[in-house]
């Protein structure tokens, strides 16, 4: 496993070129090109702003302005969901490649996760604009904005490691069980509601439900994103510890599973 991790490191250039290929290919042929990565979240923010300002106003104080609250949760969620979906099908869609060219197979799911990560980063200017508007009080009650924003950097890294780990596991499973893709679609929507994206964890009144939601490995990430982007508070060291544990635990588990099944991929895809 360590030897394979080392070989993966040697192939980092490959991950780089494949991610850039993925991004280039996605918008090739469209008029606006990369601008879509910016435009999509912008439109999303605009829609939520209108909906929650005029159609469903009056949320709890801890989540308003709700459009901005939702946006700070949806961006990292889209990365997680998109990354896992793409990673799960990465080996099967590029199966021909695995049969013909010798390279570490884990490159493919990692590229899928990284490409979705780039989309997340490309959407950050929109978030920045939203935060500026929120701080000015345009979207509703003024939100605090400050230094805790820098926590986004380690959070980005940790979520990447977490998504990569789960993505590797799913990719390996999908090779042998094509149903994973279908289960994943439903599973992700269930997971979406079990993760504090639409709501803030402290707003859950039932003590038991709140405790149950804490068992969701994604929960600490989204609470931390909210702290960084929305509440502008510092995440406590023990919570960082938990995040590191979850993300690296997921990665090692996913990688070990992937590594065990590695030899079966070229034949089974």
């Amino acid at each position: 496993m360590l030897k394979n991790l080392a070989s993966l490191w040697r192939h980092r250039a490959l991950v780089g070129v494949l991610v850039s290929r993925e991004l280039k290919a996605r918008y090739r042929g469209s008029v606006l090109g990369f601008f879509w990565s910016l435009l999509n979240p912008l439109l999303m923010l605009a829609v939520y702003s209108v909906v929650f300002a005029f159609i469903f106003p009056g949320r709890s104080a801890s989540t308003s302005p709700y459009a901005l609250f939702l946006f700070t949760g949806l961006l990292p969620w889209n990365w997680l969901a998109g990354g896992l979906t793409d990673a799960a099908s990465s080996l099967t869609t590029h199966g021909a490649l695995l049969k013909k060219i010798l390279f570490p197979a884990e490159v493919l799911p990692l590229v899928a996760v990284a490409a979705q990560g780039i989309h997340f980063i490309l959407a950050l200017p929109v978030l920045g604009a939203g935060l500026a508007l929120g701080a000015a009080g345009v979207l509703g009650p003024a939100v605090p904005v400050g230094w805790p924003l820098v926590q986004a950097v380690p959070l980005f890294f940790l979520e990447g490691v977490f998504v990569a780990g789960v993505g590797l596991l799913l990719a390996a499973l999908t090779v042998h069980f094509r149903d994973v893709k279908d289960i994943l679609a439903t599973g992700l929507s269930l997971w979406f509601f079990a993760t504090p994206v639409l709501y803030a964890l402290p707003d859950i009144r039932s003590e038991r439900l709140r405790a149950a939601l804490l068992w969701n490995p994604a929960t600490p990430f989204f609470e931390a994103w909210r702290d960084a982007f929305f509440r502008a508070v510092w995440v406590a060291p023990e919570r960082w510890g938990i995040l590191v544990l979850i993300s690296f635990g997921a990665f090692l588990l996913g990688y070990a599973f992937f590594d065990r099944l590695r030899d079966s991929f070229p034949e089974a895809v």
Partner: protein
Amino acid sequence: MSAPAAVVAEGLSKSYRKWGRTRAFGTLKSALLGRGFGAALAPSETVQALSDVSFTVARGETFGVVGPNGCGKSTLLKLVAGLFKPTAGTIAVTGKVSALIELGAGFHPEISGRENVVINGVMLGLTRKEIERKLPEIVAFSGLEEFIDEPVKTYSSGMYVRLGFAVAVHVDPDVLVVDEVLAVGDEAFAHRCLDTIADFSRRGKTIFFVSHSLALIEELCDRVLYLDHGKTKALGDPRETLAKYRMDVANEEGARLAREHKEEEKIFLEEIPPSPVPVEKPRRWGSREVEITGCRMLDVSGAERYAFRSGESVTFEIAVAPRAPLSDFVFGIGIFTPEDVCVHGTNTELDGFLPSRLDGPAVARVTLPACDLGTGTYLVDVAVHSRREAPYDYWRGACRFQVDSPDRSAGVYRPVRRWAFEGPIALERK
């Protein structure tokens, strides 16, 4: 073989899981409900693609692999390229392997040729710097300067392959694995590929070569491995190995033709009216005053056979039964190419026989002591008719046979040749 080995295979075996009814990898649901997760991943039924194959390829050697489809050639290539792991045995490859298994594998249709070259190069193990340095050379080799910045989805299949080949050879491997790639692309490109491969060989690189073109294998390879059903049938000198392979193919073909012939006999018991005939499909007509009850081909020993080497003795046997005794009959045979060109046609009348009586079931045989035909498939017409050519029973394409010629001379006729030269000229036997 003093040169150090580039590829060493010992007792190499490879089996695949079968995707039959008891699907080894079913669905997740079946795994969870059925025999459990571990059992779902364990092979239940396997197909042996390669069994106990051993060989050594010296550095700088060009090593060919031949065999019928499904003999394990592709599996062997994938093992050499490191894509698959052997089920048993070991394979050790020294140096960098570049596999021309499918050219342009991994090209993304939406992005430009140039970007694809970079990605493909990195995938094949070059660093970004190396590939960028070699880029102009690769583009020049492919001859696609004008199109290199267009997305590859606009390329023709030939352009695609040219670009793929250009990248693969510029990776500068120690061992080049070539699978049937020369079958694609135009003549000029095929020549360039061959030149490149020859150049590789001159530079002391090892080439692992798989092709159905036996002529190409014979020309390029130092040694040849003949695989059949995953087992080594022969290994060594290209001439001998290929001769053995050719003979096996001819026999196999003969067995198949004999089986087909039996089937045909069953089908064409009914009289079919004469019609403009497409060849291959036997047609039969005539008054049936004499009926052809069978038609076989025999070799020199009298055994039934439908595959012959050029120059062998070939006998055609026609069995007939008259409805009533008669004295006016002629036996005829004709040999045709599938394009319906008459190679030879004769009958007892032309060959100077005068019929006197045919009272019951009888057999006529005609032998060609040296059947000097070129490589190919031939169809045989047999007929019994009256001396005024009123057909009793005329059977088009009653048999088919295969001829295999050891040399590569052209045409349906392959006579024995003797060359002589005069004047200031010198030639040597190869």
